[in-house]
C-alpha cells in the first residue's frame, strides 16, 4: 500500500536545521510533490532518502524495510532512483553508456566473463543494451544514443537524467526540479513523461516550483518550510490551506 514511510526525519548541518522532524507516507503508484521555497530542505530530504547523506534522526521505511542507514548504491539496488537538481550526467560518456551504467545492479557478471567474452557475457550485454535503448526511447533520445552526453542541449540532458534513473528499474523515482530552466514546451513534455512513468507502475516523488503544474499532476502534496512540514494533503486542500498561503504561496505572490 505505502511504498515509502518517513517518520521523524531530521537532518542538521551544524546549526542549520535542513530537515526537522518530517514525516509522510507515499502510496504505491502515486505522484507526490514536495513543495516549498528555496532552502526549505527538499533536496536534503532527497539526499536522505537515497543515502547520499545520513539523517541525524528518524526512520525511512521503503517497501517495509528500514533504509535510513544504507549507502546510495544499496538504496538504488532496492529500487529508489533519482535525478539531480544540478545535472549530474556522466558528461564524457555517450548517451547510451549513461543509461547502460544504470543496469549495473540489475545485470551482473564478473571480470572473467568480461575477459573471456563468453556466452553469458554476450547475452547479458545484449540485455543491457536493449534495456538502455528502451529507456532512451521512453524519453525520446534514441536518435542521440551515440552522442557524448555533454553535447546534448540542456533540456535533453534533463531528460537523459530521467532515462538513466528509470533504467535502474526503480519502484520509486525521485525527480529534483526536472523542469528547472526549461521553456514551456519542454516543461509540458516532461509532465507528459512523468504521467507516462506513472502508467508504467512507478511511484513518483517530485520537487517542482511551478504551482499550476504541481496542482495538476499530484495526487498528494507535502509542503516544507525551513525544514519543517507545514502541511500535506490533496492539491485542493493545499491550495486553500491558510498556512501554506501564508508561508509559501503568499510570499510567492507578493514578489
Amino acid at each position: 500500500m505505502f511504498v515509502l514511510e518517513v517518520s521523524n526525519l531530521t537532518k542538521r548541518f551544524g546549526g542549520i536545521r535542513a530537515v526537522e522532524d518530517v514525516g509522510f507516507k507515499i502510496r504505491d503508484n502515486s505522484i507526490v510533490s514536495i513543495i516549498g521555497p528555496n532552502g526549505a530542505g527538499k533536496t536534503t530530504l532527497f539526499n536522505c532518502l537515497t543515502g547520499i547523506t545520513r539523517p541525524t534522526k528518524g526512520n525511512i521505511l521503503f517497501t517495509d524495510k528500514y533504509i535510513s542507514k544504507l549507502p546510495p548504491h544499496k538504496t538504488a539496488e532496492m529500487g529508489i532512483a533519482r535525478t539531480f537538481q544540478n545535472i549530474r550526467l556522466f558528461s564524457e560518456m555517450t548517451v547510451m553508456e549513461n543509461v547502460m551504467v544504470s543496469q549495473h545492479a540489475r545485470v551482473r557478471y564478473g571480470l572473467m566473463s568480461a575477459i573471456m567474452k563468453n556466452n553469458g557475457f554476450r547475452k547479458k550485454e545484449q540485455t543491457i543494451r536493449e534495456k538502455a535503448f528502451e529507456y532512451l526511447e521512453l524519453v525520446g533520445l534514441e536518435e542521440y544514443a551515440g552522442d557524448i552526453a555533454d553535447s546534448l542541449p540542456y533540456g535533453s540532458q534533463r531528460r537523459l537524467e530521467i532515462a538513466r534513473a528509470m533504467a535502474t528499474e526503480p519502484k520509486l523515482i525521485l525527480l529534483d526540479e526536472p523542469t528547472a530552466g526549461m521553456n514551456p514546451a519542454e516543461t509540458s513534455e516532461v509532465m507528459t513523461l512523468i504521467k507516462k512513468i506513472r502508467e508504467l507502475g512507478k511511484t513518483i516523488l517530485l520537487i517542482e516550483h511551478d504551482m499550476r503544474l504541481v496542482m495538476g499532476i499530484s495526487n498528494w502534496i507535502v509542503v516544507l518550510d525551513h525544514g519543517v512540514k507545514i502541511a500535506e494533503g490533496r492539491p485542493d486542500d493545499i491550495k486553500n490551506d491558510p498556512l501554506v498561503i501564508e508561508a509559501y504561496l503568499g510570499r510567492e505572490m507578493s514578489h
Partner: protein
Amino acid sequence: MKGNRLIVIPLFAALLLLPFKGIQAAVIMFITVSAGLMLISFLRKYRIPEGFNKIKAGLQIITENSSIKNSIIPLMMIAFLVSPIFLKDYYLDVLIISGIYILLALGLNIIVGFAGLLNLGFAAYYAIGAYAYAIANTKFGLGFWPSLPLSAMFAAIAGLIVAVPALRLRGDYLAIVTLGFGEIVRLVLNNWDSLTNGPNGITEIAPPSLFGFSLGKLQHYYYIVFVFVLLSVFIIRRVELSRIGRAWKAIRENEIAASSTGINATKYKLYAFIFGTFWAGIAGILFAAKMRFVSPESFTFMESVLMLSMVILGGIGNIYGVVAGAFILALLPEVLRGVHDYRMLILGIGLVLLMLFRPQGLWGGHYRRNKKCSS
C-alpha cells in the same frame, strides 16, 4: 588559452628537466616554455596558424576514422613481430624497455584514466613486482614463470593496502598519499640490506626459461614482452568495454550519480587499484628478468612522473593513445640522443604543442566538438 595552463605546462616541463639538468636548467626551461606559450597564444589571437589547424584536422581524421585505425594496427603488429630479425641489439633493447613502459602506462591508465584517481607513486608497484622476483629467484631459487603470478599478486596487494585508507581521502590527498607510498617503498628497498641488499641492488637474477631452455637472449625478451603487451591490451580493452569499465568511468565522471545508479564506488575504486597495480607487477618482473639486476635507483619519483606523462600524452583513458604515449616517451630519449642536452626541452615543447592542439591527448577522441547552446 586558460590562464592556468600558462603556468602548469611550463612547470611540468621544468619538473621533467630538474633531475637531469639541475635547477638552473629547469628555470631556463620554465622561462623558455612560458615565453613560447605566450607567443603561440599571441599568434593564435591573430589567426596566423591556419596551417596548424589543417594539420590538426588531418590528425583528427586519422585518429578518429576506425577503418584507418583498423588497418594501421595489424600492419604495426606485423612490423613489430618481424622486427627482431632486422634490428640491431641496441634497438631491440630500446623496444623491450618501451614495451615494459607500455605495460606500466596501461596499468596506471586504469587508475588515473578510467577511475579518475590520481596516483603519483606508481613506480612503487613496479618496484615491488621487480623485487618480488629478484628475491624469490636469488633467495629461494624460484623460476620466472612461478614467480610471475607472485610478482603480480604482491604488487596488487600493495595496491590494495594503499587504496583502502587512501580512498577515504579526496583528490589532492590521494595524490600525496600515493606519492608518499612511492617514497616509502624506495626507502625500504634502500635500507633493508638483509633482504634487498640496499643501494647495491640484487644481481644475478635468472632469465626466464622454457622446457629447460634459457630465454636469456634479447630476442627472447622482445617476444615475451611483446606477448605481454598484446595480452594486456586485449584484456584491459575487454574489461574497459564491460560493466566494470563503465562503472569506473561513471565514478570518474560523477561519483554521486554513479552511486545513485547502483555502483558501489568504493569497491570499484579498489578494483581499479588492484587491477592497475597488477600490471605494474608484471612490468616489474619483466624488467628484473631482462636487466637481471634491480636497484632502488630504477624506481624513483621521476619514474612515476614519466609514467603519468605517458598516460597524459596519449590521451587519458584511451588505451591506444596510452600505448602510443608510452612508446613515444620511452623512445624519445634514444631518438634525441644526438641532441642530448636539448632533449628535455624538445619533450617540453612537444607537450606544450600537444596541450594546445590536442588537449585530449594524441588519440583521445572524446572532446567537446558539437556543444550546442542551451535553449
